[in-house]
C-alpha cells in the first residue's frame, strides 16, 4: 500500500485532514494547534498542496492518536465554517443516514 505521504496531492479547493481515533474509531479532524477534534469546525483548513502535505505529515506521524489519516475536501459554509465536501465525508461527519433497527422500534 502506498503511504498517503507518497501520494501526490491534487488540491482544487479547501481541504482538511481527517482520521479515526485509535481508542474508539470515532471520526476526528486535525486542528490548527496540532491536536485532534471530533468537531469539523475546529479543523485546520488549507488550500494548497504544500500546506496539505505538511498537515498530513504531522497527522500521520501521530500514529498513537489517530488511524488512517488522509486529506478530505470541505466546503466553506455561509458562516465561514467548513462543511463536509462530499457524501462520504458527510456520512462520516453526521453518521449513517439510516436509522438502525433499534431506532425504528423493532
Amino acid at each position, binding site marked *: 500500500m502506498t503511504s498517503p505521504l507518497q501520494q501526490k496531492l491534487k488540491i482544487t479547493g479547501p481541504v482538511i485532514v481527517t482520521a479515526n481515533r*485509535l481508542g474508539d474509531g470515532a*471520526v476526528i479532524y486535525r486542528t490548527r494547534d496540532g491536536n485532534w477534534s471530533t468537531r469539523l469546525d475546529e479543523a485546520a483548513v488549507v488550500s494548497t498542496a504544500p500546506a496539505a502535505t505538511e498537515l498530513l505529515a504531522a497527522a500521520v506521524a501521530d500514529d498513537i492518536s489517530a488511524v488512517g489519516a488522509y486529506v478530505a475536501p470541505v466546503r466553506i459554509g455561509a458562516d465561514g465554517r467548513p462543511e463536509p465536501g462530499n457524501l462520504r465525508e458527510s*456520512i462520516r461527519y453526521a453518521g449513517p443516514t439510516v436509522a438502525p*433497527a*433499534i431506532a425504528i422500534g423493532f
Partner: protein
Amino acid sequence: MYVYDELDRTLVIERVAEFRDQVGRRRSGELTEEEFKPLRLMNGVYLQLHAYMLRIAIPYGTLSSRQLRMLAHVGRRYDRNYGHFTTRQNIQFNWIKLESLPDAMADLASAGLHGMQTSGNCVRNITTDQWSGVAPDEIEDPRIWAELLRQHTTLHPEFSFLPRKFKIAVTAATHDRAAIKVHDIGLRLHRNGAGETGFEVLVGGGLGRTPFIAKSIRPFLPKRDVLSYVEAVLRVYNQFARRDNIYKARIKILVHDLGAEAFAREVETEWQHIKDGPLALDPAVVAEIAARFRYPDYARLGDNPPELIALRKADRRFDSWYGNAVAKHKMLGYAIVTLSLKPEGGPPGDATSDQMDAIADLADRYSFGEIRVGHEQNLVFPHVAQRDLGELWRALDTVGVATPNIGLVSDIIACPGLDYCSLANARAIPVAQELTRRFRDLDLARDLGRLHINISGCINACGHHHVGHIGILGVEKNGEEFYQITLGGRADERAELGALLGPAVPYGKVADVVEEVVAAYLELRERRSETFVETVKRLGVEPFKERVYATH
C-alpha cells in the same frame, strides 16, 4: 448442534489473551497501526467509517440459543444494541471500541464464538445450507464436511497468507441454498451412478469486480479425499495466483486465465503427491466429527395436525405466513421456519439485542435451542413441531420477525454500503428500505412470486448484486450516487450473472425503475407460474429496457 471439544475451546481462549496483549501494545504505542492491522484483521476487527467493526463467524450458520444470547449481550454491553447478519453467515457489530474488544471477545469465547476466519487472506468462514440436517432434499448433513474443513484450515500456516481471501461453500441438497457456484470452491455432495456419495468440486466462482460462475473440475470426488483435494486446489492457487495486483489475485482470475482444464490438471498433479498421505480421511475421524453434531430428540408426530389445519382455515394472516415462511422438514410432524429480518422499512439483516434474546427464548421453547443463519440475511428455526406453529407465529409476530416476505420482492439482500463501510461508493440500506416501502403490499408480492433483489454499495459485491434476479450496484459519478441495474442473475444450482439493463440511474430514481421493471414483468410473463427470472431468461433484458428507458 455441534459440540466443541477442548482443543477448540483452548484455541479460542488463547486467542483472546493474545489479542488483549496486542491491543495493549497498540494503545501504548509499542505497535504501529501498520503492525497491528493484520493482527486485528485475523480476529475480524475492521476499522470502518465511524468506528471499529467486529465480525463474528457463525460456522455453517449454526447457532445455539446460548450463543445468540451472547451476541445479544455483546450488542448491549459493548455496541449500540443491535447487530447485522451478513451474506456470509457472520454477524457484525458496527460501533465497538478498540478498548472494549478484548472483553467482548472473552465474553464471546465463553460461548464458543470468535472472529477467526472472518477477515484477511485466509480461508474464510465455511458456509453451507441453512437447512442442513433437516432439509428433505439433502442426501446427508453437509456441516460435517464444513466442520472438517474448518478444523483443517483454521490457523493452517500454509493458508494463512494466501494471495487473497478464500471462500468455500458446501451443499448436499438438490436445491442450492448456499450459492456454491459463486464461491472460490463449491462442494456439492451427491450420489454417483454406483450409489456412492461424494463431491462435485467447482472452482473459481466469485462476484466482485470480475464476476465468474464456478467451473466444475471434478464431477465426483470420494469423501475420503476431500481434504487432500481442497489442499491441492489451495496449493495450486497459492503457487500460481498473482500477488502483484489485488484485483487479479482471486482464484477466479487464475482459473479463467489458465482455463478450467489446465487448472484441473495442475490440481491433479499436486493431488497425486498428497492424496494417500495423512490427509486421506479415516472414516473413524469423520464419524467422530459426525457424532459431535447432536440432533434433537424428535417426538413421533404426524404431518398436518388438526390444530394447524384449523388455524390455517381460521386465520388468513397465519395462513399467509405459513405459506411463505414454513418449509417441509425431513421429519414427519416438524417444519423449518424462516424468520424474516426484512421488516418494512428496516435495514436488511439487522436484529436488536432484545430481538436476539427473544428469538433465543423462542428457540429454546420451539426449536430445541437451535437457530440458523442464512446468506439471505434471515434466521431459521430448524426443528419446529407443526402443532406449535400457531403459538410460534404469534410470538414471532410480536418480536417483529414474522413478515411473510421470504423469497419475495421485499426480502432484499443488502450490504452495509456507504452508511457504514469504508470501501463503499454509494448507500445500499436506504435503497432497500425504500423498496420495502414501495412493495409493502404483500398480495402484490405474492403475485410477483419469487423475486430476489440484491444491492451492493460498491463493486466488491458483498450484497451479491450480480446474482440478484434484480441486481443493484451503487457507483459514484462526479460525487453523486448512481446505480447500475442488472436483471436475470441467480445464485442457485442454475447460477447466472445478471445482464445490465442500461445506463446507471440516480439514487432518487432507483425505486421507480425497479417498479417499472416489475410492472413490465407482470405484462410480459406468459403465465402466473413463470417467475421473474424465467421471464428475463426467455426474453432477455430488451423488453424491460424499452419500458424503463422510455419512461425515464
